[in-house]
């Protein structure tokens, strides 16, 4: 640890896994780190999740490990950035708690927003009671009551809700939904062993280590029925059951099923709350609204502006391991920047 590093202030905006991991790493390098989170708790979306694919690791354990060793990191929850000023060297950041920090470097770990599934009107989220999202289901797995889940016998999962969808303006893949759907399908099958569970997918992107095993287990052990085709519309019958139309592209036929529960795999979208920061710092964004790094190959954690860095899903959808790795990489990039500009 370089003693002089302690005189350098680094502000990390966003207290999700990327922000926490980067803060820990920067702290271990001796820097003075201020971690700002607008919600009342650290953890971001991870704090709402019950278990993580592919091994069913409890999300709380992962978050607990990360936050157990925050070192000297000064973290503030329920706090927002109210003003950002670029200085000759560094940035002046004014917080909603009245604090003002002179930062030598700024790391944005502002993450993503969960796609608003009600925008896919044809799926009926917010209209039909038995249509829920992946996040709602995680709530239920965590023990939070979800009235729609009442001993369902036929359950459907719709992949790619708000992802790979030009109609809603999101052409990109959200990367985590396929694996999340398979994980959740297996979990709910464990809760309701007699239920028939369908997954409606475009194609399954099982790219990570252990994902393919999870997918095979879903078929062999849990008997999940994978239907390659998109759901076209959802409606409700007289008894409140869901009437779902889809296409089975492998069979080359339209398909209709009556379900008791439909889970929409809402994808990741840009975090709109970060817009004032983007404007204030004149940052570049990509066509889909995510922050644009300086170079996607070798400088994925750097912005075009001096002293501003990115980590995690603010530059696009990422898994937790990707996010953690990128957070550490961002910390190292900041370290190099401060060393070279000392």
């Amino acid at each position, binding site marked *: 640890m370089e003693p002089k590093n302690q005189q350098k202030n680094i502000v990390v905006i966003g207290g999700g896994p990327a922000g926490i991991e980067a803060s820990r790493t920067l702290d271990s390098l001796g820097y003075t780190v201020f971690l700002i989170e607008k919600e009342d708790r650290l953890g971001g979306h991870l704090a709402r999740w019950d278990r993580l694919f592919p091994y069913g690791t409890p999300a709380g354990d992962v978050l607990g490990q990360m936050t157990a060793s925050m070192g000297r990191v000064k973290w503030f929850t329920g706090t927002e950035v109210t003003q950002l000023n670029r200085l000759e060297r560094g940035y002046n950041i004014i917080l909603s708690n009245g604090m003002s920090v002179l930062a030598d470097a700024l790391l944005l770990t502002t993450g993503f927003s969960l796609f608003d599934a009600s925008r896919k*009107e044809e799926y009926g*989220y*917010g*209209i039909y009671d038995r249509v829920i999202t992946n996040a709602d289901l995680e709530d239920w797995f965590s023990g939070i009551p979800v009235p729609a889940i009442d001993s369902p016998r036929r359950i459907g999962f719709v992949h790619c809700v708000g992802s790979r969808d030009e109609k809603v303006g999101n052409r990109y893949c959200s990367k985590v939904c396929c694996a999340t759907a398979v994980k959740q399908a297996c979990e709910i099958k464990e809760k309701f062993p007699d239920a028939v569970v369908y997954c409606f997918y475009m194609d399954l992107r099982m790219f990570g280590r252990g994902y393919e095993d999870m997918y095979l287990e879903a078929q062999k052990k849990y008997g999940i029925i994978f239907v390659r085709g998109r759901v076209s*519309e959802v*409606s*409700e*019958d007289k008894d409140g059951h869901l009437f779902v139309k889809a296409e089975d592209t492998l069979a080359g036929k339209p398909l209709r099923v009556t379900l008791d529960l439909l889970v929409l795999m809402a994808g990741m979208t840009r975090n709109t709350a970060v817009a004032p920061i983007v404007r204030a710092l004149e940052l570049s964004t990509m066509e889909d609204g995510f922050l644009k790094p300086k170079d996607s190959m070798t400088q994925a954690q750097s912005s075009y502006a001096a002293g501003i860095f990115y980590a995690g899903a603010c530059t696009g959808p990422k898994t937790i391991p990707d996010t953690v790795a990128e957070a550490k990489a961002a910390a190292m990039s900041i370290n190099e920047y401060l060393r070279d500009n000392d």
Partner: protein
Amino acid sequence: MNYEGKKKIWSEFQKEIPDDKYFYARSCIRQNFNPGAEQAFLDIVRNRFGKDFYEDPLHTTCGGIAYHSDTTPEETSMTIIARQFSLMNQAGYRNFVVSCVTSFGLHSEILQTWEEHPEIEEKIHELLWKACRREFTKPDFLMHSSDMMYHYRFLISEQAKYPLINVRTGEPLKVVEHIGCHYSKIFPSKSVGGAEYPRVLAGLVEALGGSVVDYPERRHCCGFGFRQYLVKANRGYSLTNTYKKFESMEPFHPDLIITNCPGCNYFLDRWQYVIAETTGKTYGDTPGYGIPVLSSEEVAALVMGYDPWDLGLQMHQVAVEPLLDKMGVQYDKSAKYKGPGGKDLGVPVSPANIRIF
């Protein structure tokens, strides 16, 4: 079902509808099938509400059916519609309202094409000039007649004599609203309420006291589908689609079907006859009579106290009398088949399985 969820979607598909001063274009098929609907629309807006709706006898078909059955190229339809706009310009109007959903869809498609490809609009200016020495400017607003019924729904409600309430039970009538595909499925943003949960007829029904039936095949095509029907060999598809809708709505016991499209109105009405004659089955809670199918203007006029036979409701296959009785409408049963001046129009032959009065 969460009504608030629908309201959230409706709020995103609002449409600016000018209150007055329209050039009106009739539907070529509706004038033949249900001429009273056109007449009722004009009478309501002009004489009940005092609005300025101009009609030019020189206007023609839009060519929509020919276009959708691939018998005329798009440029022909564009030139025909450009001529309608020219007539509108000549009469001094800037708002255009069409009576037919197919026509509304085609007008919308053409205006959007011109928006995205100005060179095509330029070509149509040339073609119209060569064809009939006319020039045109596009309308400021394009409306469908059901948009106007929606816009005036509270005025209609204020003059309601027979609201959509069952006088025997005091309960709202259960109404299936069927939206023509070309109203909002092509351009949801040009409709009232969007494509998935259209508001245009639901809003009218609710304003007039009825309740809307949300049944599983609500979005499905009526069965017309142009080539499904126009190609004789495909008519089984047309009938199958209609049958699917009736089977889906049956458990909800609807009292009435309201449509905004002349083709949908015709097919949902007439195919009930074919279904009854081929399967022996009729729908609705008046055994043997089927479910009446009316246009938005016919429903509005009926609610406002127009005589059902002046409206031409005897032109519908499915008998409307059970509906009239539920609404408490006062009418002369013996006048159903009398024309102007009491002229005897003749009583149609009663089908075997779907009864008429």
